[in-house]
């Protein structure tokens, strides 16, 4: 387990603000985008790319010993593009191609268009099965690499996730660490009203996973938890990350409307001001 110091936490908080700014920069060059889930998973992505993922190298994105990260809820790709560009996998100049013809930044990620992307997600329920195959493949190779996945909570309705959940525990994929971004909203409203999957932890436990539940915006807790995986030898690890949809932009926060946001230039300005204010606060800490 890795314990962040206060100074490291402050540094990561600043990076999280920068990743949110990147998301805004990308989305404002198009006309719309899935901002809610991108912002609810920003701290998870910050922790992964700046403290957790090992052997991630923009100069050699296919390094064999790298940890893998899959964004199973592919519509959250804005935060993936943001983090990969910030890490140097590609230039931020590409941000303004979002929504343009043949852009390398489509509305769902394409591994053949950008370095650092491990799978083509977007059709829900695909990321976890692919991750299970990667985990088993890496174990066969006796690799120390781990596979990390962020899933949406609305995505859990897809049956393939539960097929993969059974397969991962049956094949003892303890190199697999899955985060459910539990922001409690999907396109049409609250997840629990649309299809209730609670009690979520018990379901995953019943499928043979070791489950923890955390605050998905607390960087110290996130890093502690992710670096403590596998939680139990021989079992895959599942982290229910309690988050706020569209965290960081006050007028979008905790709303279903933020799931797919039609960009309004005045609102972009307001959002930028809010992020700038947070950045200043952090500078003064």
């Amino acid at each position, binding site marked *: 387990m890795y314990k962040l110091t206060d100074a490291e936490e402050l540094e990561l908080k600043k990076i999280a603000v920068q990743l949110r700014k990147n998301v805004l920069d990308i989305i404002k060059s198009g006309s719309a985008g899935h901002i809610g889930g991108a912002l609810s998973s920003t701290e998870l992505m910050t922790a992964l790319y700046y403290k957790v993922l090992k052997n991630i190298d923009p100069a050699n994105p296919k390094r064999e010993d790298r940890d*893998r990260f899959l964004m199973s809820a592919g519509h959250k790709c804005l935060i993936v593009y943001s983090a990969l560009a910030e890490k140097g996998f590609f230039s931020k100049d590409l941000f303004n191609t979002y929504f343009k013809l043949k852009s390398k930044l489509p509305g769902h990620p*394409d*591994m*053949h268009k950008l370095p650092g992307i*491990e*799978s*083509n997600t*977007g*059709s829900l329920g*695909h990321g*976890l*099965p*692919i*991750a*299970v*195959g*990667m*985990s*088993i*493949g*890496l174990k*066969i*190779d006796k690799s120390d690499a781990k596979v990390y996945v962020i899933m949406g909570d609305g995505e859990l309705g897809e*049956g*393939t996730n539960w*097929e*993969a959940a*059974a*397969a991962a525990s*049956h*094949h003892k994929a303890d190199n697999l660490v899955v985060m459910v971004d539990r922001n409690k909203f999907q396109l049409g409203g609250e997840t629990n009203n649309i299809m209730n999957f609670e009690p979520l932890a018990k379901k995953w436990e019943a499928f043979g996973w070791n489950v923890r539940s955390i605050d998905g915006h607390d960087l110290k807790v996130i890093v502690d938890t992710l670096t403590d995986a596998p939680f139990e030898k021989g079992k895959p690890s599942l982290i229910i990350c309690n988050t706020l949809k569209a965290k960081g932009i006050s007028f979008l926060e905790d709303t279903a409307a933020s799931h797919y946001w039609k960009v309004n230039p005045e609102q972009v300005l307001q959002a930028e001001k809010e992020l700038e204010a947070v950045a200043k606060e952090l500078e003064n800490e």
Partner: protein
Amino acid sequence: MSEKKDPRKTFGEALVVAGDKNSKVMAISADSSSGSQMTMFKNKYPERHLEFGIMEPGITGICAGLATTGKIPVFATIAPFVTGRNFDQMKVDLGYMKQNVKVVGRCAGLSYYHLGPTHQSLEDVALMREIPGMTILNPGDPVEITAATIAMTEHVGPVYMKIGSDPMPVLFDEANYKFEIGKGITMKSGSDITIIGTGTVLCRAAEAADILEKEGVSVRLINIHTIKPLDKELILKAAKETGKIVTVEEHYVSGGLGGAVAELLAEEHPTKMKMIGVNDQFGSNGPYDELIGLYGLLGPQIAETCRGMLK
């Protein structure tokens, strides 16, 4: 047509050979290893055989993940469950992601003759043809099944191969047989009419050609074992030289071999055509030969269809 062999056993034996040649080859089972004759592979290479039980869409994704780590997964089970049920995974995880996975649909076509439409696959080729980059193999005799099994594991990219379950006559001489993905085989080089056969009913097309030859008809017989990519050159040459094309397949006539040939000829060289196969209906059930006879797929019936075109 003397000796007959079990296509599944032939596939299972060939998979062991493919596994001998390349240690990356793995056998993936959806409680289907016994039915797909992968038990031989499992016994020889237990650490390269993975069982997942009945979850075909999930397994298809898992195969894509395995392929990202350099493995060559060969996933074999009942044809409709690895083409229809898991279509989205075939499209996205194998096609769009360009993963090196080999999917084998066994007991394809009408070969589950007693079990009815849930287990029959008359649409598998039509579905797979719509996935860019997907190679589709439909070998026509045991020699070809062996060659195709090894060739697909050597080919880089997603492959769908279909095999039947009824014993198949040996049509090719193993010593002189050469298999190349995308290259059809001219079995008879006549000039009056061309019969193009594929897969389980290639032997029926060959039987029809023999019947017609005895009647003095000069028949060209072509074996299309690769439906995608289609051997356009060979088919266009036959269309130009014989002027009449009959396609024969244990599949819907739309979207399968017949559809592929018709699409080619419509644009490149419009030619008189008949497409023999199943029309827009669910397959019936009953003894295999009687069942395929409902759709005009027996040798004498194919010959009769050709006679109609020669009038």
